[in-house]
């Protein structure tokens, strides 16, 4: 199998403000969000990052998307280093997270063209891809409606489509079904399965066991910024359900769940 993403000793430390120290109930001035994290993803597979809130999943994905810079370590994505060639990395990935918002003044149609231009998508590909994706998600019905007037589900569909304007080989999704109604969540899950059949590599972070069991080939379990287990779904589960295995591991590493 061809490696497409190799993460080596990724580390990220955040400074905590007085307010954050209060919220986290700690006197420490820094927080190790990601600690010496390493894993590999192979071309065409769906790799799931599983962990509780605050485990470091989102921080890891943000480092892979070059939105934030690792304090140590590196990740090489399809031959490009996130530390040395962030622009090249951004050109190769599609990144979707709830913190990326679309300008509410514009229509999905305008935004698709705008982001296609920023990704340098040729005019003929742009038109074809827009038709394909808009029709797949039913966006053509509200393509000329301003984003501000769309429902949360519609906005999520548009965000998903915008993240894929350039038909990237590696797709990084952070909690893709969070906050979505069951119907839109199903559309997104089905689409991820579709992308897998197209041979795309998908890195997805979630705390929804069902989503991982449904679409992932391999799983990495992150607890407190560390990768505690990374293997194929079957090997991780070891004959149990993913949920059972996760809580076993959690109790082993952190202690009893209160």
């Amino acid at each position: 199998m061809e490696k497409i993403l190799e993460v080596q000793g990724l580390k990220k430390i955040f400074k905590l403000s007085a307010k954050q120290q209060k919220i986290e109930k700690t006197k420490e001035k820094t927080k190790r969000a990601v600690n010496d994290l390493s894993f590999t993803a192979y071309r065409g597979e769906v790799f799931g990052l599983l962990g509780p809130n605050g485990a470091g999943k989102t921080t890891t994905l943000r480092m892979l998307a070059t939105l934030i810079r690792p304090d140590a370590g590196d990740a090489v994505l399809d031959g490009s280093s996130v530390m040395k060639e962030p622009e090249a990395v951004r050109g190769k990935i599609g990144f979707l997270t709830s913190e990326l918002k679309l300008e509410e003044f514009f229509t999905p149609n305008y935004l698709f063209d705008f982001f296609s231009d920023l990704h340098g998508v040729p005019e003929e590909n742009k038109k074809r891809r827009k038709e394909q994706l808009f029709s797949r998600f039913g966006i053509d019905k509200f393509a000329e409606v301003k984003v501000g007037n769309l429902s949360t589900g519609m906005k999520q569909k548009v965000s998903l489509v915008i993240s894929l304007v350039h038909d990237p080989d590696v797709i990084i999704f952070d909690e893709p079904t969070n906050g979505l109604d069951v119907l839109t969540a199903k559309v997104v899950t089905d689409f991820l399965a579709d992308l897998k059949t197209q041979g795309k590599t998908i890195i997805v972070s979630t705390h929804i066991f069902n989503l991982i069991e449904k679409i992932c080939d391999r799983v990495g379990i992150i607890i407190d910024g560390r990768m505690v287990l990374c293997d194929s779904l079957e090997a991780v589960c070891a004959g149990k359900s993913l949920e059972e295995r996760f809580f076993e591991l959690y109790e082993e590493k952190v202690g009893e769940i209160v």
Partner: protein
Amino acid sequence: MRSNMLTIIKKEFARFFGDRRMVFTTILMPGLMIYILYTFMGKGMMGQFATDDTYVAQAYVENMPDELAPVLNELSAEWKESPGMDAAKNAVAAKEADLLLVFPADFSAAVAEYKVSDGPAPNVEIYYNSTATESAKLYNMVKSVLDSWEDSITNKFDVNAGSGAYDLASEKDAAGQLFAMLLPLLLMTFLFSSCVSVAPESIAGEKERGTIATLLVTPMKRSSLALGKIISLSVIALLAGLSSFLGTMLSLPNLMAGSGAELDASVYGVADYVLLLGVIFTTVLVLVALISIISACSKSIKEASTANAPLMILMMGVSLTTMFGGGGEKNLGLFCIPVYNSVHCMYGIFSFQYTLAQMIMTIVSNLVCAFLLTWVLTKLFNSEKVMFAK
């Protein structure tokens, strides 16, 4: 890089010009409001000092000297014998009469015999009411008549007594002087206000709404984003600033009509306007870049607007330097200080006292400064601490 920069410029224009309300409030309204406000103020001032030509003032007089009676009777006033000092003063205070003029007894003889070495001269008292326009007008006329009469009886020599034009300044220079005194401060205020109305919305606003992260995750270089934002915002701010400038130029003649000053913007030639536009555009680039940096460091539009307030005060302070300290700057070296150079270039253009070296120095130093500030903005776009501060 160029193509991404153009894409950002197009998007910023689409965002701004696609919103009719924003175009109206940012570009059209300031110019229109300034025109209406200045015209209204001009008309108000004219109205305050205007008097009814057919009005015959009611005036009281005590001990009117015979030689002054014919001159005073020529004024548009009906002179009556005073009913007594207190009664006459009360009538003037109550606006029932316009003036009380009191000559000392034997005024003519006292004046004829008076020598400077005698001490205080005979005193004429004129009581009037400054809050009544007609009373104030009659006071000025009577005082003028008495001053002229005094000059005529003690005349030793005259200064500029003939009807010739003694002020040799051309009308063009006089108008230029007036424009130079008023416009640099006004223009800088308009330009700064225009920049503040667009830059925080576009940069701090995008941060606040979370849309800047969507841009930062594309392969576009941060420098393209910074340049695209600064150029597009500068063009919009320039349009807004020009609207205010146009409103001012068109309404200044109305505002100053009461003062008798001749203000005509056609005293300036095409070259003057082209230079002015060059100075204004490069100034806007510097201002937009400065405000963009402040906005990038702010978490919200509100925070950015507050943080920009001290800059506004500084800008006003620098703009005032043309009003005090003898006008335009002569030291060429000081024309490399952004904003200060712009203010003094504007003064120079309006007063026809600029040199080409000053203009070139200003435009080049403003461009260099804008370039450096764009570099800083690029660094800020690259900084996760700045862009994703919570």
